[in-house]
């Protein structure tokens, strides 16, 4: 049987030594204690004040002793489950278990057959949700696009509804307004079957960022507080950029990401101890010729792998960023950048690799065909995570003895028993001889992906049950149906 791999333990790749991890940790604690961080939300400042932080009110700087920082981190759960509407889609975050998902939030959609990019709409989001539902190596749908046609106060409910109504996988998403957060949670409660049911099996989670370096923005801190109070899982990612919002060095970047994400983690644990929170990294390098955010650099893979080790050190579930490209088209660059960054994150044991499929062009654009291509990359990556199993069965001494010198293994039962699980079975890769490939139309990777996009979307009949849908539409405002 062919196997869909998810949640396998990674961690064989360790760019940081134990000594390096300790040094980064001690420096991080020194930053929080000596330099402090800026908190621009009054409410957040009060929360930090409650636990005895030193606060410079004029400069809005919060400083905390190491002991308090560690106590707060220890309040956060090391493991929890992001649930799918269907249990088979559950994601058990923690340890070094590896899962993948989409990411965003992109403003454009690239259409390779017209070689054109255009603004993303709500309809694109629905289509991507349907597509991701049918791609086995993408385990979670992080709402990947921003529907340009909607006003900001209708964005949150419509994005989450587009996800929840088109895939049974867990839905994670960035949020834009406090009112939106409230309505999205209310909608998820209806779908989950009640307030308690949603907390027990959270089918949604949210993202609220901190600002690198060392700053909690007012709006985002207020959203972090609101989400933490609600008991819904959340991610507190930080986005330090080498040479722009962090030191140019990889170590300096991992350090900055650690501190900046911990600011959010700590706030959530003061607001509501035990809140399921994910330590997050969107760290990468910049193009120092014009300070563009780079989405496909090898350093991005390296920093995120390092941060995965920091997350394991703090025993916090980890949200990594990898799998994107800066290419504008579906060419070699789009393949190798996505593959290298995904592979480094996965081998380091990142619990959830976000952005791992569909994104290109500095994370500003998504492409349906690229989801299918990246699904293949992720299948290969997860096979690499799976590693090499060594035991009597895999070494097969008895079989080798039986086959003997100059024999072959093609007809062995052992071969059939293991061939589908031991080797990744491609779903997109072309392994034809040239004549056969030509006979099948001589299609390039993205052309083959295009065929699959159509098949998967057309065959997906996922949808919320009618009565649930009607309840959502009647109780939640502004859903464009």
């Amino acid at each position: 049987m062919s196997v869909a791999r998810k949640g396998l333990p990674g961690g064989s790749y360790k760019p940081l030594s134990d000594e390096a991890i300790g040094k980064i940790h001690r420096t991080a604690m020194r930053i929080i204690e000596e330099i402090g961080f800026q908190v621009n939300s009054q409410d957040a400042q009060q929360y930090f004040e409650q636990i005895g932080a030193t606060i410079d009110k004029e400069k809005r700087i919060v400083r905390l002793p190491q002991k308090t920082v560690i106590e707060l981190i220890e309040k956060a759960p090391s493991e929890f489950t992001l649930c799918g509407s269907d249990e088979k889609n559950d994601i058990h975050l923690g340890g070094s278990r590896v899962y993948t998902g989409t990411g965003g939030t992109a403003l454009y959609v690239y259409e390779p057959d017209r070689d054109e990019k255009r603004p993303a709409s709500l309809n694109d989001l629905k289509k991507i949700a349907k597509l991701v539902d049918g791609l086995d190596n993408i385990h979670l749908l992080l709402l990947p696009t921003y529907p340009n046609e909607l006003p900001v106060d209708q964005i949150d409910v419509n994005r989450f509804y587009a996800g929840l109504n088109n895939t049974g996988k867990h839905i994670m998403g960035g949020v834009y307004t406090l009112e939106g957060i409230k309505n999205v949670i209310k909608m998820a409660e209806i779908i989950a079957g009640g307030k308690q049911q949603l907390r027990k099996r959270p089918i949604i989670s949210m993202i609220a960022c901190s600002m690198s370096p060392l700053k909690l923005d007012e709006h985002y801190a207020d959203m972090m507080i609101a989400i933490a109070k609600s008991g819904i899982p959340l991610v507190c990612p930080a986005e330090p950029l080498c040479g722009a919002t962090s030191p140019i060095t990889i170590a300096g970047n991992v350090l900055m990401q650690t501190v900046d994400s911990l600011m959010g983690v700590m706030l959530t644990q003061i607001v509501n101890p035990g809140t399921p929170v994910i330590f997050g990294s969107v760290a990468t390098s910049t193009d120092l010729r014009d300070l563009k955010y780079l989405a496909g650099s090898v350093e991005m893979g390296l920093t995120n792998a390092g941060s995965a080790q920091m997350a394991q050190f703090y025993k916090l579930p980890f949200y990594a960023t990898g799998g994107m490209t800066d290419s504008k088209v579906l060419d070699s660059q789009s393949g190798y950048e996505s593959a290298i960054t995904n592979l480094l994150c996965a081998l380091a044991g990142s619990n959830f690799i976000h952005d791992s499929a569909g994104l290109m062009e500095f994370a500003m654009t998504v492409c349906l065909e690229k989801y299918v291509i990246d699904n293949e990359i992720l299948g290969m990556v997860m096979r690499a995570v799976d590693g090499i199993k060594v035991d009597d069965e895999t070494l097969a001494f008895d079989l080798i003895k039986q086959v003997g010198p100059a024999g072959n293994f093609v007809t062995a039962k052992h071969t059939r028993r293991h061939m589908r699980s031991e080797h990744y079975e491609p779903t997109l890769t072309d392994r034809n001889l040239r004549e056969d490939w030509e006979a099948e139309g001589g299609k390039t990777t993205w052309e083959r992906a295009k065929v699959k996009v159509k098949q998967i979307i057309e065959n997906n009949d996922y949808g919320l049950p009618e009565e649930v849908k009607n309840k959502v539409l009647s109780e939640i405002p502004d859903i464009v149906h």
Partner: protein
Amino acid sequence: MSEDILSLIKENVVQGRINQEDEGMEEGMEGKPAVTELVQKALDDGIDVQKIINDGLTSGMDIVGQKFEKKEYYIPDMLASAEAVGAAMEMLEPHLAKNGIEPKGKIIVATVKGDLHDIGKNIVTILLRGAGYLVKDLGNDIDDQTIVDAVKKEQPQFLGLSALLTSTMTHMRAIVQSLKDAGIRDKVKVIVGGAPVSEQFAKDIGADGFGADGFQAVSVIDSLNS
């Protein structure tokens, strides 16, 4: 003698060295006099201030611009050079006034409301100061009215607006309109820039110019100023 020191100033601008502790691009520069020490020496030697600016600082910055264009220089290289020029201009300011030399023009810059990204605007500010302009930086996340009020009060020749987000760049259009409504649109030239901004967008909203990067911002302002 005067040529030697001017070419040394130029060379050190290209190296991006403000003072003698700075490392510069090449090995072994540390400890040698840099732009500020050299400018002080030029002043002590009685070299003409305008000559220091033209043959030392500006011609050094021209080379930096070319190197940036050729992708030999990164932004941090360019900023180091511009900061060295800025530091030199500060030293020269009292001498400029004494000799009756005016700054090239007055510019107000701001990152618009809702946008916390100020790196781009800061780069342009440093480059403009390096190019001899008097720049007033209002900061980031500045609401439309504050910007319009500042234009009324300071009466600059130029207003530079920056945005990184597609969601905030719409403020640029509103600000141009507010300047019209206040009857001062023809008193100030509006230059826009930032990642999502394009030449076409600048035209659409009725701005006077667009800078794709820091150097282009300076050259656009120079050409509108002449």
